[in-house]
């Protein structure tokens, strides 16, 4: 009878060993799978990252091109005397700024100006009419109206101080800011 407990002890040891080995062998295969998955994921991530970086690079190049175009166009639109009609040249400049506005959510300030001829408050109204002509062109091209603020300075802030057509033509303007 003395042997039984011994046998039973040995058995339980064997069982325990088998269980342990079994366990150990299970652990190993799971770890391998996890490692493989991680590697796979890392590779995918890296690929995605690369694609993203490429796309971002492309986008930033495009953004850069749009920004360059807007800054090359300048931010000043010029007008005829007593007129708020956009000239074709002004529309080209404006289109470059509209393209830029569509890439960001920045607010836009349009400052309307006139030359020194005529009365100050009438010019204040004329400057506003110019800024609003630009604002409605932008709105019609898909720039949300709430992003645009029009402020008229009338003849109060000339870009050029002389009293000849050379200066006046520089002063009849809308500045995009």
């Amino acid at each position: 009878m003395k042997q039984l407990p011994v046998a039973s002890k040995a058995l339980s040891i064997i069982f325990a060993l088998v269980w342990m080995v079994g366990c150990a062998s299970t652990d190993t295969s799971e770890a391998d799978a996890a490692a493989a998955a991680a590697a796979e994921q890392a590779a995918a991530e890296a690929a995605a990252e690369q694609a993203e970086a490429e796309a971002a690079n492309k986008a930033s190049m495009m953004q850069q091109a749009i920004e360059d175009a807007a800054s090359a166009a300048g931010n000043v639109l010029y007008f005829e005397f007593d007129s708020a009609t956009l000239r074709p040249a002004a529309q080209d400049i404006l289109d470059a700024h509209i393209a830029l506005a569509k890439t960001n959510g920045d607010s836009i300030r349009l400052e309307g100006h006139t030359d020194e001829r005529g009365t100050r408050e009438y010019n204040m109204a004329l400057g506003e009419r110019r800024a609003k002509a630009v604002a409605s062109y932008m709105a019609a091209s898909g720039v949300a109206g709430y992003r645009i603020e029009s402020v008229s300075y009338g003849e109060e802030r000339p870009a050029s101080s002389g009293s000849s057509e050379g200066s006046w033509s520089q002063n009849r303007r809308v500045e995009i800011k």
Partner: protein
Amino acid sequence: MKQLLFTMLAFLLLVAQARAELVIEITSGRDNPTAIAVVPFAWSGFGAAPEDVADVIQGDLMRSGQFAPVSNNDMLNLPTREDEVFYRDWRTTNTEYLLIGRVSGEATVTVEYELFDVFRQTRIIAASESGPVAELRMLAHRVSDKVYQQLTGIRGAFATRILYVAVNREGGEDVYRLMVADADGVRDKEVTRSTQPILSPSWAPDGKRIAYVSFETTRPAIYMHNLVTGEKQQLTNFKGLNGAPAWSPDGNSMAMVLSKDGSPDLYLLDLASRQFRRLTRHFAIETEPSWMPDGLSLVFTSDRGGKPQIYRLDIATGDTERMTYEGSWNARASIAADGRTMVMVHRADGNFHIAVQDLERDQLSILTSTALDESPSVAPNGSMVLYATKRNGRGILAAVSVDGGVRFRLPSREGDVREPAWSPYLD
């Protein structure tokens, strides 16, 4: 150190003061001006006289273009009392009228004066003006007013003040100053200052409060400023235009231009309730309101016909009629106290002049010949129109009589001055 700072501050203030100061240059007067001798007034106070009262009066009468003051050097004697007057001395120098006087007092001064008709050998005025010594120049202007009224039949407007905007380039930026000065440009004081534009100063009929437009918040807004207490209030803060404030003749409301509802239209602000009432509703530009003296209607500029012209709006009925038909461009009208003389900016041959239209005869005459004339403001007695123009590339103030016969210029010592606004009578 404190003292040094104070001295520097005082110096800077003086420099700022000198910059905006106006200088008078008379360019044209009447053909046969009345010869009047204003003899230096006697001064019985302590020390030197604070002001040369006779000099102030001479300047006023000279500027009116209707008088030729006799030079002090041509005076054979210098009477200061009636018993010192010898008519023969004045007749020989062809003096038609003689003004003599005396100044006495300390903190409060009294100017006693007497006006004589040399040919009739009679005294036609014996009167006096009293006030604080700091206002001695104003007392002198009041003497001028009385003399002018006695000899022309028209109330004088010398004891009045003007508002104007002075612009100077300082440290790379423009500094805009709203200034107030006596009507002769002397005793100029800064009301407010900003590196953003200030424009459209306007007087309340009480001569104490003013309104103006300032961009100090980077957007235009209308402000009210009390010149006596220094108290300042922002009246409007709407999106778009906030401009052209014009106080009603009763002082209770203010016409102005707002574009908050779309295009620029006229609105009326009740100053007690702060309620706004829209007066015009048109897609064109409506601006530059100015009151008829009866306070029942406004004249204003509108380009509803294509180019700016002057219209008149009946406030009660809303009826509008066009007032100007001569020329393709007329703007910024204002009406003299007589209710029939309208001054405005009129474009002719591409140049902008000050013009006057007689509303009864519907006749327009051009008063100025310079190219960039604007902002006409009529004296409260309707005699002279103060306006802004450009001379040698600088903004200056100038004045012309309503009949075009008298002219003078008021350039500043430095920088540009513009947008004069003549005060109402102050007494």
